[in-house]
C-alpha cells in the first residue's frame, strides 16, 4: 500500500470548492433550526397540553430516527405524493439543496430545543425568586433573567450540536449535492484511491471543527463575563 501524497495535494483544492456549499447548508440549517428550537421550547414551557404535546412528538420523531433516513424520506419520499409536487413548497423540495436544508433544520431543531430546555431548567431557583420579589412579570422574568442565563448554560452542549450539524451536512452528498464530501466521493470513484482522498477530507473537517470549537469558546467566555471574575 503506497500513500500517494500528490493525490492529497491535488484533491484538497478540488474539495475546497465545495466548502461554500457545506457552509451554506450548515449556517442556513443552524439558523432555521435555532428558530424552530425556540418555538418548540416555548411550546413545551407553555404548560398547555395542546402545545406541549405536538412539540414532544416532533422532538421524539426527529431525535428517534437517523438523519440519513430523514433526508431520504424528504428527498425521495415526499415527491411520491402528487399533492407535494403541486404545492407551493415544490420549488424548494424539488431542489436537493432545499430538501437537505429542511431535513437538517428539522433534525437540529429537535436536538437544540432539548438543549435549550436543559439550560432553562438549569437556571437557579433563587435567582428566579429574587426576580419575582423585584416585581418582574413572567414575561420580563423570561426575557431578562431566564433567557440569558439559560443561553450561557446551553452553550457547551449547543457547540457540540453545531459540530454534529457540520458533519451531518456531508450526508447531503447522498442526494446529489456536490458539497466537500460529494466532490471527494466523485474523486474516489475516478481514482480508486479512497485512502488518500478521504483522509484529506477528514483533515479538512477537523480543521473546521477546531475553528468552531474556538469560536464557541470565545462566545462562552463573553457570556460568562459576569460569572467568573
Amino acid at each position, binding site marked *: 500500500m503506497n500513500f500517494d501524497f500528490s493525490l492529497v495535494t491535488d484533491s484538497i483544492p478540488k474539495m475546497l470548492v465545495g466548502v461554500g456549499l457545506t457552509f451554506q447548508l450548515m449556517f442556513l440549517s443552524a439558523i432555521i433550526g435555532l428558530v424552530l428550537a425556540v418555538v418548540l421550547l416555548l411550546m413545551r414551557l407553555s404548560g398547555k397540553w395542546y402545545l406541549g404535546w405536538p412539540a414532544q412528538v416532533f422532538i421524539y420523531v426527529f431525535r428517534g430516527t437517523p438523519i440519513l433516513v430523514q433526508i431520504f424520506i424528504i428527498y*425521495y419520499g415526499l*415527491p411520491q405524493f402528487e399533492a407535494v409536487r403541486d404545492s407551493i413548497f415544490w420549488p424548494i423540495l*424539488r431542489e*436537493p439543496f432545499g430538501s437537505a436544508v429542511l431535513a437538517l433544520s428539522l433534525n437540529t431543531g429537535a436536538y437544540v430545543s432539548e438543549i435549550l430546555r436543559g439550560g432553562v431548567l438549569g437556571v437557579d431557583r433563587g435567582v428566579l425568586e429574587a426576580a419575582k420579589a423585584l416585581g418582574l412579570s413572567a414575561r420580563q422574568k423570561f426575557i431578562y433573567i431566564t433567557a440569558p442565563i439559560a443561553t450561557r448554560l446551553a452553550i457547551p452542549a449547543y457547540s457540540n450540536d453545531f459540530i454534529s450539524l457540520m458533519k451531518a451536512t456531508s450526508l447531503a452528498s*447522498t442526494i*446529489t449535492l456536490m458539497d466537500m464530501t*460529494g466532490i471527494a*466521493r*466523485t474523486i474516489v*470513484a475516478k481514482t480508486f484511491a479512497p485512502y488518500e482522498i478521504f483522509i484529506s477530507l477528514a483533515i479538512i473537517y477537523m480543521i473546521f471543527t477546531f475553528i468552531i470549537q474556538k469560536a464557541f469558546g470565545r462566545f462562552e467566555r463573553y457570556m460568562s463575563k459576569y460569572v467568573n471574575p
Partner: protein
Amino acid sequence: MKLSTLKFLATASVVLFASGSVSAEPLRVGMECTYAPFNYRTADGELAGYDVDVAKGVAEIIGAELEFVCQQWDGMIPALLANKFDLIIASMSITDTRLEKIDFSGPYRDSVGRLIGRSDADLNLFDDSGEPIAANFAGLRVGLERASTYENWFNAVLPDAEIVLYDGSEPLYLDLQNGRVDMIMTNPMKAQLRFLSEEAGGEFGFVSPAISEVEYFGIGVGIGLRQGQDELKERLNGAIKELINNGSLTEYALKIFPFPIHNPAWGDS
C-alpha cells in the same frame, strides 16, 4: 501417487485434445447465474438468459460440450486464471484493465448508453444522423451514475448540460419520475426491464439513439479467456461472427428486449 497419475492424464488429454480441432473435453463456462436477464436460473432451476444462449450457440458451432460454473462476480477473473473454468460468458465488458489480466473474444453485446426522458417532451436533441445538437442540451438536467462511462461522455461531448450525479440506477428512475431531472442516461437494456416496462415508466421512453462511442464506452461485452490461447480465441471469434450473421444474436435479444443488443458491423470480417 494417485493424484499425480490423474494430473498426468489430465495434462495428456489437454495436449491431445488441444491439437485436434474438435474438443471432446467439455468447455467450462463461468457466469454469475444471478444476473438477470443475461444469466440467471429460471423457476425450474434451468440456466437461461442472453449470455447462456450465446454460450450454447458458440458451443454448438465450435463443437464443444458445455458445462456451466456459477461464480461470484468479484472472483470471476481469479477463478478463470486458477483454471476453475475456461471461458467467462458473463456480460463482462472488454476494458483495458481486464485485458492486462485476461484475453477477450470479439464483442457479442453492446456496451451502450441511452437517454430516457418524458415521451411527450419534444426536445429536438438529436439530428437526423443521430448526432446530438449541443445547443439544445443547454440547461437540461441529466441524471447519471457517479464516474460512469456516461459521465465521461457527457463531460466530453455535451458540457452544456447540467449533470446530476447519483449512486445507483434506482434513484435515477425515482428522480426522473419526480421531475428533478429532465432525463437520465443509463444502460438501455436494464432500464427497459427495470423501469420502462413497469407501470412507473409509462410516461417515459428513450429520447436518444443508442450511444456507444468506443472512446468512452469501450468496445462491448466479450467472452473472457486465459491469455495465450490464440487458437481458441480465433474459433470463438468465428463462432460469434456466425451467430451475428445468421441472425441468432438478434433472436436471443428479441426473446428479452424489443431491440437487438449488438452491433451488426461486428459480423463483418
